[in-house]
């Protein structure tokens, strides 16, 4: 089956000149598939981390300490209003060499890999947006609900975890899922620091096989496909989280 597909694409190349190496060359196919896997892995890790940052940030923002609130606000505004590419360069080229260890041969080896830096950087970037999104969700929770939780003897943290956040998360889910879609698209920027995701893997393939137009179209279609599946999945999660009777 796979062999006949490979033969068909090889024939296509000979007949028409359309060179889709990823379908008949096992080496290119492996590179491309691992690129897709890297993109999905990166996106998944960033979604989880940025969710944690968003939740932690919104709890800190609700604290009475003005200094804490101010520093969270600074973090949000700084990361929202600066280019993520330069943030990535700042982390990878600026901070990366500072956090290095010497190996057995005395060479300096970076402790944090480029994949890890991309994960950290994109999570912090998307996390800044998440805090804002969750905050507006928390503000949309009715005052009376918060007061009811207080009168039942919940601590501030307890009322957040058991009452406010479950409601706020559902209110802010559409904006959150939109941000996560943007985050998934943002992972392609890690091309700049040579993380072997789809775009980088494809650029290696097209430098070897000189099939730029074909690969470019494949990259575009793969991204649209992955993001569409992600959008669909987020829609399913939103439906699954729905609480009947509260209008959420």
């Amino acid at each position, binding site marked *: 089956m796979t062999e006949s597909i490979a033969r068909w694409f090889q024939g296509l190349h000979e007949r028409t000149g359309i060179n889709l190496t990823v379908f008949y060359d096992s080496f290119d196919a492996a590179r491309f598939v691992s690129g897709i896997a890297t993109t999905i892995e990166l996106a998944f890790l960033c979604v989880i981390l940025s969710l944690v940052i968003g939740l932690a940030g919104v709890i800190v923002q609700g604290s009475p300490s003005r200094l804490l609130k101010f520093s969270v606000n600074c973090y949000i*505004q*700084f990361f*929202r*209003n*600066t*280019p*993520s*590419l*330069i*943030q990535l*360069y*700042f982390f990878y*080229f*600026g*901070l990366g*060499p500072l956090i290095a260890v010497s190996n057995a041969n005395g060479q300096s080896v970076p402790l944090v890999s480029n994949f890890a830096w991309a994960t950290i950087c994109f999570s912090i970037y998307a996390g800044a947006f998440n805090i804002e999104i969750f905050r507006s969700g928390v503000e949309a929770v009715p005052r009376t609900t918060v007061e009811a939780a207080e009168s039942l003897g919940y601590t501030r943290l307890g009322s957040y975890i058991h009452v406010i956040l479950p409601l706020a998360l559902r209110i802010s889910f559409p904006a959150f899922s939109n941000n996560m*879609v943007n985050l998934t*698209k*943002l*992972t*392609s*920027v890690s*091309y*700049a620091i040579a993380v072997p995701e789809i*775009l980088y893997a494809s650029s290696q393939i097209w430098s070897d096989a000189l099939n*730029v*137009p074909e690969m*470019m179209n494949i*990259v*575009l279609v793969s*991204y*649209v496909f992955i*993001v*569409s599946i992600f*959008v669909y999945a987020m829609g399913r999660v939103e439906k699954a989280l729905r609480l009947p009777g509260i209008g959420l």
Partner: protein
Amino acid sequence: MAAEIVSGSGSILSVLASWTPYILKGFATNVFISIVSMALATVLGVLVGVGQVSTTRAVRAACWAFTNFFRNAPWLVVLFYCMLLLPFQFRIGGVVVAVPDWAKAILGIAVAASANMSDLVRGAIQSIPTGQWESAESLAFTRRQTLFLIILPQCIKRLLPPWMNLYALVMVSTPLCAIVGVNEIMTVAADILAANTRHDLLIPVYFYVLLLFFFYCYPISRITMRLERRFAVVG
């Protein structure tokens, strides 16, 4: 190690100061790219957005497909697409017109942003109460007149805050052009680092560039927030 950094801190500032005119020139390129591509994206986005509410089914489907395809494609990939697949020169009659890299980059960003713009326009048009359409119809306005004389002018106010948000997004996306080989602020930063070959310059240079973007984009986002609050319907 620490002493080295402390002793060099004065000269870091002086190095940054001496390179500032060059850095600002690079930043001006980013501003130029962002303004031109935003203008293009606005025009294209309004056309496609209006197309999304067209009465002709084919136009509606085509505009919907364009919007959703480019909304789901990463901007960097669209940029690569424009950069690598557009010809580097055109032949009009006997005259060969070269297409510079930055023009292709502008087009790439504009196409990506226009998909977002198109959805904003569609949302704004649909947020206008249908009563407006009906009363215009009863006053014998044609559909085109209704759209351009009645509906779209009302959309401008609703569109302004998200449009400004989109502009800020376009601005912070312009450094992506450096990846595809356009000379702008990231190229300048790389030049400075190459010319000085000092490791302690890496963080200050990138931080300086980050600050430039911050001081350009933060006021925009403040104004956007204020406009949003002013235009918000109190309910």
